[in-house]
């Protein structure tokens, strides 16, 4: 679960007459991440594109402009468009339709400008008072009266255009698919290394799928195209292909925004899956807000189908569930003290609400800092394994082990207040060890970084502070509406409800944004800096449209 797909580097060599067929095969397999060709010299040169790419690109461009102008997208179509073979007839049809649309569009613009001028003429009709001759003005009136006629004409043209678009939009989509794939294939040699008579493709493939590629190449070309695995050093950036289970998948987006993990580095997506929604929930913590976000994400999921949106909504969905859970702990429903209002004292023997975070902010503050200590500790432990994998055990102890012991010693010293004063000696001894290790590992400058760790941990105070400010605003909205406006009665009643609705919508939007950003920040700045290097690239198989 924590490791990603294992990649292997491959090289594919063949004679140039087979290049087109090879590209065809690779494009249909969609399993190879092609490396771009880099160094050019006298023997090895960059490949030339096949066929007339520029002509195809031009057509593609005009089709895409039609698609975006009329908002034609696969998910907007009623019938699913079939991916038929693109034939000569279809091509001609699409190009003719494109011309037709252009002509219709031109006519409509012309009519629009004429109608605009007539509208300007209308004001001239008032000139009668100035003393202009009546006959002269009549000719203007004739023009003005033809306006409705022109408008009808315009409407007719618009209808014609619309029906044309509705009829042919599936063709357009299909042709766009075809063209972009075709251009992809034609431009592929630009990434290959070529000599006068041969070509070489370098790329990455997941180890599991190597067999499939080998078999296909063998079947298609026999021995005429040669495929082999190439050795690669640890320094090389290996493209990353995640294989997370469905619930964890949305959190890949957060790495997409930051950086992909480098080769052999621990993939933090699973840690994000556990702690990101938790922090979000602690900060927002309100049953009502959680429900609103949950329902909104469910509704939006039906509408927005692109991958990025799905991931974002997936993250928000999990986070809203945590928000509802922490809402029960804090006893908040749109800022109201729900258990108090309903008169519920106990549920399952627990005093409700478990923590009233407005009154008892000190326990929440201490809890936030303890979460910070453990989160930073987790980051350091992950960092320990990363360094151990890359540079060995000794380095790991000196670089990360010292910090781990330091944080543990602080935990011991803090615990001595609550459990037993003996803990302080253990903590002191550990602190001494860690400082020695620190000085050995990083010199005396390392000691300065202790303040860095301290500010990292204190930064988790925001788990309390952001929540507190969000509740604060909610309570203010409630008291303005309930205590000040509503008691006045009469026309103030709808106004009071308006304040409630608008205020809470605003506060929910702020809450979503603030909790999201601050939870993200805690991970990027406080957590990732302890172990994560990043700098990897995404696995982009050749043949898949982006």
């Amino acid at each position, binding site marked *: 679960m924590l490791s990603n797909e294992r990649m292997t580097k491959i090289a594919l060599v063949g004679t140039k007459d087979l290049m087109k067929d090879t590209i065809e095969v690779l494009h249909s397999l969609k399993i190879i991440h092609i490396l771009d060709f880099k160094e050019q010299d006298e023997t090895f040169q960059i490949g030339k594109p096949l066929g007339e790419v520029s002509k195809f690109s031009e057509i593609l461009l005009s089709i895409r402009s039609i698609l975006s102008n009329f908002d034609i997208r696969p998910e907007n179509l009623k019938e699913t468009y079939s991916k038929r073979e693109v034939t000569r007839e279809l091509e001609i049809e699409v190009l003719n339709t494109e011309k037709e649309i252009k002509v219709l569009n031109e006519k409509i613009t012309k009519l629009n400008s004429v109608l605009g001028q007539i509208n300007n003429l209308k004001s001239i009709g008032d000139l009668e008072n100035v003393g202009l001759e009546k006959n002269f003005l009549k000719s203007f009136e004739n023009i003005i009266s033809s306006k409705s006629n022109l408008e009808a004409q315009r409407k007719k043209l618009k209808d014609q255009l619309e029906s044309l678009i509705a009829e042919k939009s599936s063709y357009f989509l299909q042709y766009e698919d075809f063209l972009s794939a075709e251009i992809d294939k034609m431009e592929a040699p630009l990434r290959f290394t070529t000599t006068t008579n041969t070509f070489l493709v370098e790329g990455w493939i997941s180890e599991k799928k190597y067999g499939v590629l080998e078999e296909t190449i063998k079947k298609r070309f026999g021995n005429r195209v040669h495929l082999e695995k190439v050795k690669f050093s640890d320094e090389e950036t290996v493209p990353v292909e995640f294989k997370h289970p469905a619930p964890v998948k949305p959190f890949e987006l957060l790495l997409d*925004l930051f950086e992909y993990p480098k080769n052999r580095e621990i993939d933090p997506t699973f840690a994000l899956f556990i702690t990101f929604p938790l922090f979000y929930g602690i900060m927002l913590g309100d049953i009502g807000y959680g429900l609103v976000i949950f329902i909104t994400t469910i509704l939006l999921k039906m509408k927005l189908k692109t991958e990025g949106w799905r991931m974002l909504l997936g993250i928000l969905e999990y986070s809203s569930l945590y928000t509802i859970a922490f809402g029960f702990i804090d006893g908040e429903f749109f800022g109201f003290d729900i258990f108090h209002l309903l008169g519920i004292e106990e549920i399952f023997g627990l005093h409700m609400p478990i923590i009233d975070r407005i009154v008892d*902010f000190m326990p929440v*503050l201490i809890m936030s800092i303890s979460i910070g200590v453990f989160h930073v500790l987790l980051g350091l432990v992950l960092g320990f394994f990363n360094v151990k994998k890359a540079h060995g055990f000794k380095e790991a102890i000196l670089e990360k082990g010292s910090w781990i012991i330091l944080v543990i010693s602080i935990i011991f010293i803090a615990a001595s207040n609550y459990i037993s004063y003996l803990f302080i000696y253990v903590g002191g001894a550990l602190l001494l060890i860690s400082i020695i290790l620190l000085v050995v590992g990083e010199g005396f400058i390392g000691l300065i970084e202790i303040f860095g760790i301290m500010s990292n941990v204190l930064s988790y*105070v*925001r788990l309390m*502070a952001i929540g*507190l400010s969000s509740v604060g605003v909610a309570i203010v909205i409630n008291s303005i509406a309930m205590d000040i406006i509503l008691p006045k009665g009469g026309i103030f009643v709808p106004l009071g409800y308006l304040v409630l609705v608008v205020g809470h919508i605003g506060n929910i939007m702020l809450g979503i944004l603030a909790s999201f950003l*601050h939870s*993200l920040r805690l991970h990027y700045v406080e957590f990732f800096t302890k172990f994560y290097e990043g700098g990897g690239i995404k696995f982009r198989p050749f043949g898949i449209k982006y």
Partner: protein
Amino acid sequence: MGELSVIVVILSAAISVGVTGIAAAWAGKHIGSAAVGAMAEKEELFGKGLVLTVIPETIVIFGLTVALVLLFVVLPQIL
């Protein structure tokens, strides 16, 4: 003496929230405009820019914490 220290504590709480708020806003303004500028050059920087803009808010969060501690922990001890 007693009254004066109460005034000082409350004033300190007000200053710690107010001044850190202004500081965070000022820093946010500069970072925000720089982040948008960087994004115009390179769109992949969106994630990093987004996080950079919330970094100075730590200042005001610390200010708020200090104010809360002053008002709810220090003040009752003086009174």
